[in-house]
């Protein structure tokens, strides 16, 4: 493609949160390519994005999104510059390039070193050393740059991180090898220095990939949050606008089935609201003009017009977001394993190396000999194994979780999850799937079923859906009911060949008031339907598995105590707390934390969000509210609860492997350091020890893949 043409093209990136498998690549690319004005489209399955090259001025990103929507894929225009995505891509490529350069140099220097170790002498050895230096020094300068920068910024802030001893080891090995080469000496550490950089870069790259994956997950979540609303303008026109653009005083229309985007007052229409994500209440409630509604509730049965009272930071949503923020600040104090290890390791090796240097000088060694030994100590103290231990374990664990449909947002979350001793579940939407299930209805052959099937067929109300689903499994053909009307807050009525029929609240349908559930009245006959909040299919097994892992369990719910007890009995969970407000859940978790409990909070509702971010670790199902999903550290998909136990198992395996790797490094160091201090470590031994320990750590990490 000629250059001048390329410069007139425009590119758009789309985020595709739904694509999970390779089967989606083809349809998405074909759908996009079929739009006139699209020159080329390519899906990136790893990042869940599509890059689309457009003829300028011909198509807008919105058209692409609409076309994909018709084909069944949700998409959203994505600005790579907003969340640092572009910078992250750049860093990944930069690290890979440095790995390539370090690998090239390490292999060639190793080739030369083998000649030296096999007995090259005098002028030949000097020549080989000089060539090694010529390859290694520029490569060390370039490939090691990320470590030098990080060490410099740590020192500037008067801190010591893992990169300080690394930088010192590289610098000392380069310097002492150069001196040794100039003096025609026997030992040069060029190979060890560059190999050190190579292994460390691999560790750094793996760490970066895990973090980039977490960022993708976060971007995916925020993409699902971006919604639009239908605004009724002053001139009577209606326009679809982004939720962010809404202002107090404006009027928006909400169709049945939509989620309410802002706090407001109903000015027009009646309907039923599903408040479960906001309050944790499982039952739909009627709403009339003049009542207050909050963002996050779902409008079920009739259209509503709402005058917005609050947007931005004055909504209930923002109130909860503030609680989330405050709770999260407490959690960032968590000390990562890698940092803890670095804090012990970094000063330790400096002191040992310094002591070796001073000791040998004191024992009468020449200063360059003492310097060589100090360099050998720094090189051999195995920062590789330490630097690889955590990233490899996290990479393998993240991959395994991903395959079981669990998305991890941060490596530290995995470490926290392994320490959990109490699992607190929300009820509605977490232990249950948030949909009512019919437990008591008319007999199978009852004439009530065809009528109920006809009345509920078009309704979005969850109870109607439960009845319709049962009618379908019974194979009932709908009766001929005409003039079906849904009366929000009451029920559905219609006309069965001259007989009025009503399905809905008992008092409205004409049964004894106060009866539970829903009543169908056909003429004089009355039939009752009773429901329960349907537990997830594997709830009891999942609770059993968690108990087997030695964990205590509790239910925290905003729902009524009786409903909580029903589920608690089925799951066999004794600790139950009902009727909780979001702030009370948060307080319970804080109390537990004060007692020293490490709690895993599993929840889906807006009301769970503060508790999710205050908990030691947190998970939320994929069906959860946006706020809960972004507050939780892990998100699991699917209808089952089994991923909770699976995630804990993987986290524990990862923690065991990480500790083992530290153990390997410790054992290895306890042998290597005395040898190095005594001056027995030659470049050959350093090279073998370094690659040997790194390999051991990586192989150990791979065991997480199959851990039970």
């Amino acid at each position, binding site marked *: 493609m000629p250059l001048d043409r390329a410069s007139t093209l425009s590119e758009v990136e789309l985020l595709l949160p739904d694509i999970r498998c*390779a089967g989606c*690549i*083809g349809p998405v690319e074909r759908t996009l390519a079929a739009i006139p004005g699209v020159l*080329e489209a*390519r*899906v*990136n*399955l*790893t*990042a869940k994005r599509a*890059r689309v*090259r457009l003829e300028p001025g011909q198509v807008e990103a919105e058209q692409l999104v609409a076309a994909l929507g018709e084909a069944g894929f949700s998409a959203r225009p994505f600005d790579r510059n907003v969340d640092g995505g572009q910078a992250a*891509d750049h860093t*990944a*490529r930069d690290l*890979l*390039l440095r790995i*390539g*350069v370090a690998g*090239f140099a390490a*292999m*060639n220097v190793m*080739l*030369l070193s083998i*000649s030296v170790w096999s007995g*090259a002498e005098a002028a*030949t050895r000097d*020549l*080989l050393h000089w*060539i090694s230096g010529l*390859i290694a020094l520029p490569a060390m300068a370039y490939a090691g740059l990320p470590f030098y920068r990080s060490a410099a910024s740590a020192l500037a802030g008067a801190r010591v991180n893992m990169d300080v001893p690394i930088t010192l080891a590289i610098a000392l090995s380069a310097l002492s090898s150069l001196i040794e080469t100039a003096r025609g000496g026997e030992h040069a550490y060029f190979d060890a220095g560059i190999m050190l950089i190579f292994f460390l870069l691999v560790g750094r790259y793996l760490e970066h990939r895990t973090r980039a994956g977490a960022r993708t997950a976060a971007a995916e979540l925020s993409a699902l949050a971006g919604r639009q609303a239908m605004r009724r303008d002053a001139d009577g026109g209606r326009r679809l606008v982004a939720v962010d653009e809404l202002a107090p005083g404006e009027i928006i229309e909400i169709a049945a089935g939509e989620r309410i985007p802002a706090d407001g007052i109903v000015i027009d229409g009646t309907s039923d609201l599903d408040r479960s994500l906001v309050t944790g209440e499982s039952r739909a409630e009627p709403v009339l003009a003049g009542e207050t509604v909050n963002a996050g509730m779902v409008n079920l049965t009739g259209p509503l017009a709402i005058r917005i009272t609050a947007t931005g930071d004055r909504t209930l949503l923002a109130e909860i977001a503030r609680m989330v923020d405050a709770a999260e600040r407490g959690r960032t104090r968590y000390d990562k394993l890698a940092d803890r290890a670095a804090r012990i390791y970094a000063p330790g090796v400096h002191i040992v190396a310094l002591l070796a240097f001073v000791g040998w000088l004191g024992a009468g060694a020449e200063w360059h000999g003492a310097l060589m030994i100090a360099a050998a100590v720094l090189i051999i103290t195995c920062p590789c194994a330490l630097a690889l231990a955590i990233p490899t374990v996290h990479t393998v664990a993240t991959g395994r979780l991903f395959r079981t449909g669990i998305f991890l947002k941060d490596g530290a979350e995995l470490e926290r999850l392994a320490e959990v001793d109490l699992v607190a579940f929300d009820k509605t939407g977490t232990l249950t799937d948030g949909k009512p299930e019919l437990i008591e209805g008319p007999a199978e052959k009852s004439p009530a079923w065809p009528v109920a099937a006809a009345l509920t067929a078009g309704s979005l109300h969850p109870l109607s859906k439960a009845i319709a689903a049962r009618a379908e499994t019974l194979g009932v053909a709908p009766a001929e009911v005409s003039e079906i009307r849904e009366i929000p807050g009451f029920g559905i009525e219609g006309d069965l060949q001259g007989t009025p029929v009503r399905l809905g609240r008992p008092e409205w349908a004409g049964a004894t008031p106060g009866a539970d559930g829903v009543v169908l009245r056909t003429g004089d006959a009355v039939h009752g339907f009773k429901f329960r909040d349907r537990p997830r299919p594997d709830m009891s097994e999942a609770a059993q598995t968690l108990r087997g892992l030695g964990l205590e369990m509790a239910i925290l719910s905003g729902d009524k105590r009786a409903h909580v007890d029903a589920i608690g009995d089925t799951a066999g969970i004794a600790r139950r707390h009902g009727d909780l407000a979001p702030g009370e859940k948060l307080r319970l978790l804080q109390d537990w934390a004060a007692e020293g409990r490490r709690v895993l909070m599993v929840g889906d509702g807006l009301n769970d969000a503060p508790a999710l971010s205050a908990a030691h670790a947190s998970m939320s199902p994929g069906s959860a509210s946006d706020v809960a999903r972004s507050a939780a550290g892990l998100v699991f998909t699917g209808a089952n609860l089994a991923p909770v136990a699976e995630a804990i198992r993987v986290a524990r395996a990862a923690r065991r492997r990480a500790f083992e790797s530290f153990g390997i490094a410790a054992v290895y160091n306890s042998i290597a350091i005395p040898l190095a201090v005594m001056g027995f470590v030659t470049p050959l031994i350093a090279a073998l020890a370094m690659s040997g320990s790194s390999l051991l750590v990586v192989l150990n990490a791979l065991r997480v893949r199959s851990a039970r």
Partner: protein
Amino acid sequence: MTVLGALIPISLFLGLCGLGAFVWTLRARQYEDLEGDQHRTLFGGHDDGPM
């Protein structure tokens, strides 16, 4: 040992070829979608490669 005079340049040259090839694959964005590309090899139809 004079053979080293020929072998070292050759090995360096070959190594640089490898490095050059790696840099080229990197520039061609071949490492950005490992997940998707492993499946694309099984698709029918011609693939022009990453854009």
